[in-house]
């Protein structure tokens, strides 16, 4: 495939034509927030709305996970418009996320914490109130790992791992709007589903929604927070 030359934040970059900007940038250690992007996905879902960048000559920020690189394009990862959208999308996600980092198995390895760190955002709500709503109970039926939807950001990484990597098809997205959720077919518990407990989905989850039920975690359940607060 032919190579193209372009710039990200003024830096000259060369990459195969048509590759999506998000992955090119990350490869060159240029951070762009992202949750739902999957490099292998032909048609990215582009649902998290965090990976915005600005391209010179285009009036509005665009999502970089869907943006094929082109010869001569000039990309900026930080502009007032981009920062504003990222800040908003981030706060919106937090408003529907049970924020208790200290008690979360993903503490310090969480993509939300990384975004906050990289972009100087706070892990707390500023303008918005937390959405008051009921989440389904934690599904720990497999005894290997558990799924806590109150931490899920609906990125779809687990669904991809299950359907495209493990090729099992135990989970998928269901329901609409605010009720959109990751679930098994007909919403049965994981233990009753075709899930093989391979754990690929757990490894794929960027936040603490899917987590292994290992000893460390059981200690945390007792209220201790060995890793401390960030």
């Amino acid at each position, binding site marked *: 495939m032919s190579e193209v030359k372009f710039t990200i934040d003024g830096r000259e970059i060369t990459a195969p034509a048509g590759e999506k900007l998000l992955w090119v940038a990350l490869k060159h250690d240029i951070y762009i927030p992202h949750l739902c992007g999957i490099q292998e996905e032909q048609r990215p*879902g*582009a649902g998290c709305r965090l990976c915005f960048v600005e391209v010179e000559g285009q009036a509005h*920020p665009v999502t970089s996970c869907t943006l094929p690189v082109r010869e001569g394009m000039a990309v900026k990862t930080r502009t007032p418009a981009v920062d504003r959208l990222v800040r*908003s*999308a981030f706060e*919106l996600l937090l408003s529907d996320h049970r924020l208790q980092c200290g008690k979360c198995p993903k503490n310090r390895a969480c993509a939300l914490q990384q975004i906050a760190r990289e972009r100087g955002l706070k892990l707390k709500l500023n303008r918005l109130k937390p959405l008051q709503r009921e989440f389904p109970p934690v599904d720990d039926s497999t005894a290997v790992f558990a799924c806590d939807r109150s931490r899920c950001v609906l990125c779809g990484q687990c669904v991809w791992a299950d359907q495209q990597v493990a090729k099992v098809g135990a989970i998928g997205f269901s329901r*609409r*709007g*605010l*009720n959109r959720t990751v679930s098994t077919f007909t919403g049965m518990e994981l233990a009753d589903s075709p899930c093989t407990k391979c754990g690929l989905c757990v490894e794929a989850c960027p936040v603490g929604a899917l987590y292994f039920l290992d000893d460390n975690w059981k200690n945390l359940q007792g209220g201790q927070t060995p890793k401390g607060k960030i």
Partner: protein
Amino acid sequence: MSMLSTTEKTYQELRQKAEAKLAPLADKPLIWIGTATCGKAAGALEVREAFKEELKNKGVDARVMEVGCMGHCYAEPLAVIAKPGFPALCYGKVDEGLVKRLVDDFLVHDDPCYEFAMVALEANDIFPTFADFPRGVYEEKIILEQCGFIDPEDIDHYLAKDGYAALARVLDMESPQVIKEVKAANLRGRGGAGFPAGVKWEAVAGQAEQTRYVICNADEGDPGAFMDRSILESNPHLVVEGMIICAYAVGASHGYLYIRSEYPQAIRRVRTALQQARERGLLGNSILGSDFNFDLEIFAGAGAFVCGEGTALINSMEGKLGLPEHRPPRLSTAGLRGKPTVLNNVKTFAYVPLIIKKGAEWFKNTGTPGSPGTAVFALAGKVANPGLVEVPMGTTLRQLIYDVGQGIPGDKKFKAVQIGGPSGGCLPEAALDIPIDFDSLKEAGAIMGSGGVVILDEDDCMVRIARYFLKFTQQESCGKCTFCRLGTRHMLDILTAITRGEGKLSDLETLRELAEDVQAGSLCNLGKTAPNPVLTTLKYFYDEYRAHIKEKRCPALMCPDLIAYYIAPEKCSKLCNACVGSCPVEAVYTREDGLKAINQGKCVKCDNCLKACPFEYNAVIKLSPPSLLEEKERSTK
């Protein structure tokens, strides 16, 4: 004599057969009854049966024919009687009594009962026609012209009125020529966004991939919109013909009509239309004797609003969840099953046969240079003459509301017009001289959208209206993307708090920021346009928001939490008891002096007592903010 081409000859034969079949009918009286969904809802089927019954009783030889909607839905059920020797006359609000009179007086005794007639369908010396109606002066029916005047279930009616002549002509043209004509007409998509249809077709025609599809979007999910349904129910062949022409132009051999399953009548009539078109050789292999093959199928949509969005529609047709996708790729490169696809709205296709028949120049004579042709609107809300109207693009909102819709009923004052469906904008009095076209509306913060127009008067609270429309889009959000799923919900929560008097001024800033971010950041147009009602009301009716927050006052006296019902002692008649009985919670009571009063602790603000209080007293009034009560009570003690 010029040589007729094969297609032309085949077409002429079809047409002559149709005319020959219909000619004898002209000798006996014909009764048309509008049985589109609007007519049916008003009792058209009962009227049909009453006519049949009465004709039998009186031994009158007349034919009863079901037609679609004429756009005068306020007067349904409608019946038209065409008796040889009289102009065809249309009667509104027909009931069984009127049926009896019409059959006896008119059909038996030649008295057309002019006192009950609404309008004559053709020019004559006796009775006015639609063109003499105030709205007739402004209306210009292009795609609705035949609606309500032909039998949608008999293709011969369409054929006899020049139907499929455009197709016959197109089959003798080169396909690029067809596209050129549609492009020259600058036909813009009527599904909302106004994208030029010819440009879309050209993109599909230019693809290397040879399997191509044509899809008609009849999902029509906007509440209050029913023009696409009406066209499919009233004149399905017009749309079918437009689709066949499009298929020829882009080289497609298969197409679909995506019709929402809540439209069973439309689905039935389209199915009949497809069947009859196939029987006449207008669909299927070797259309009109040419070497062009094309067939059409109906896909009954699952019904979610978001499925009207192109990529979601395709996903749902492929059996996947009906969720939108990022674009590009556009449907014209990768649509249904990854193949190049034309997706157009019902109305867009309906214009096509007319443009081919009469030419691009004819089409451009109506409307504005940027938005040629007509616009079809469903007028609703506080307007004297609601219904389906077709006016030239460029008509001003003022003409639409006051001349076509006959203004605001009662002595009420106009406040705003909400145009474009739930994702449209609310425009104030000052915007009434804006011409209706794709670009001017967009500039003002509204959209052409589905063509829903809701007229609002002084009794409508703009915060509640914004909340009402946002609630619809919020509930219809598919949930795939962050801004629309969560942003619309937070906006709704803020609006709800404001209508309850629990808002803060800083909420308005948050609301505006969120609205702008949802607009800029959402994945599909549902999210991108959902904030329009909020942004436009914030822009044009900011004071109303402020009053709710700063004074806990609802200027339109509509928000239940910000009003109190009060019975003015100086107006109340001691002798009347109407309000007391009307209250469902026994909040209204009779004071020792005989006057009525309201126990505020019990009142549920249902409005019953206000409605029950006789007009001559009008003693029940609404106060906002509720704190006014204390003042009132103090002053009357």
